[in-house]
């Protein structure tokens, strides 16, 4: 019974949205908008689940003195510090502009932001090692992949145009023709697959919520 109600709730909301997509008569668009608004709130509540899980996960490690438990101490303490600063001191409460006055701002500007940027920049190294390892002429498909990558890479930098003058034109052509066609094909296929998945979920054939 409880399960059937879950399936029914999923069906009703899903079906409602599909109907709302076509109907402009009140109150349907209005209800749709309200649903959208209130689901944002559900999402916000879920963060507490995350924080509880985070605290449980790390406190368990600390209790059991697991390998690397000191890291868990650092994680929990920086979470608590940042959360307290965020709630009592932060500029996100007022103007929403991160300035340079409070400890919160300092942590944001000099710890959080550089860590983000640095993690992101690791990609430059990863892309090099992935290319080195993976681009092997094992078969024709792999060769096609590699040649396309090299031509486009040459086409992007000025020295590439010195080495291989046509690379810019060829790489533009690749991007706008075969690349576009394949992207479009994948996109249409994926969209159809997603829609089919959605229909299955709405009909309760697949129940990813239980």
């Amino acid at each position, binding site marked *: 019974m409880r399960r059937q109600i879950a399936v029914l709730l999923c069906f009703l909301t899903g079906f409602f949205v599909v109907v709302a997509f076509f109907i402009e008569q009140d109150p349907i668009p209005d209800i749709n908008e309200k649903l959208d608004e209130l689901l944002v709130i559900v999402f916000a509540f879920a963060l507490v689940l995350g924080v509880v899980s985070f605290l449980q996960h790390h406190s368990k490690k600390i209790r059991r003195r697991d390998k690397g438990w000191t890291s868990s101490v650092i994680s929990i303490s920086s979470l608590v510090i940042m959360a307290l600063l965020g709630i009592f001191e932060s500029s996100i409460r007022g103007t929403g502009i991160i300035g340079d006055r409070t400890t919160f701002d300092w942590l944001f500007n000099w710890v959080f932001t550089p860590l983000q940027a640095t993690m992101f920049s690791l990609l430059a190294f990863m*892309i*090099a090692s992935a290319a*080195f390892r993976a*681009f*092997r*002429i094992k078969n024709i498909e792999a060769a096609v992949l590699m040649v396309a*990558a090299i031509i486009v890479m*040459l086409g992007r*930098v000025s020295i*590439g145009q010195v080495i291989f003058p046509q690379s810019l034109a060829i790489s533009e052509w690749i991007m706008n023709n075969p690349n576009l066609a394949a992207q479009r094909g994948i996109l249409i296929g994926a969209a159809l697959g997603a829609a089919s998945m959605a229909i299955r979920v709405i009909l309760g054939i697949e129940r990813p919520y239980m």
Partner: protein
Amino acid sequence: MKIGGIDKRWVYLLVAIGALIPIIKPLGLPVLSTPAVEALFEKIESLEPGDVIMLSFDYGPSSAPELDPMAESILRHCFQRDISVVVVALFPLGGDNQAKIALNKIVPEFPVVEGEDYVYLGYKDGGLAVLRRMAEDISIVFPQDNRGIPLEDIPLMQRVQNYSDTELSVSLATGIMGEWWAILVNAQFGQPVAVGATAVSAPKYYAYLKAGQMLSLLGGLKGAAEYETLIGEHYPELKERSQIATRGMDVQSIVHLIIIGFIILGNIVYLISRSERTRAGGRLASK
């Protein structure tokens, strides 16, 4: 950790060295300038000392690596030629800060006086509406400059009431703002507009360049490097300082070549090991 007999940390190390060398000492690999960039340079060259241009900071920190070098080069070019600059910031998420960073860096390099050779009017919210109002009277939008001095008390602004008193508007823009200058300030008010855009948005802007709604288009790091090269060619005394984008392009070229080199090397290693295995009578490697 090893790929084809080579520890992949060697790959990391080479990428890091390849990126660091040009940052520490620019190599000056050739940067060929394109007409789209030359147009702005020549426009500024054609101005007389005392003429005024408007420079708008329409980007935030995420586009800074690409657009900061453009801002610096354009300011240097103008100050070098005694052209006055009216600076504004229209991008809500950090335009103000970028403008201050650029001015703080470039102004000390030249004997320029705030209020006479340049003025910074600060940030104003409102996008298109601001662009529109400035066509009538800049002082409606910015009653005072960033220091809080009323515009009528600023010598430079006594000469400038609206776009028509300036020779050119340059927008360093992220996202849609460059288009606004083209479709409004150029198309409606006839003001020459040049746009510096990120590499991501530049392709979209080519249509405006073709249609003549943009006098010039600087696209991404490459556009910035081209402008730096032009400055270096015409004003050798500025060459040393105008290198940020150029060295960025050096890094790009070098690291691209390193990656391509590693791909080729990897294949040579692969082909050798495969032929050895075949000779040894083994199956053709498949994984």
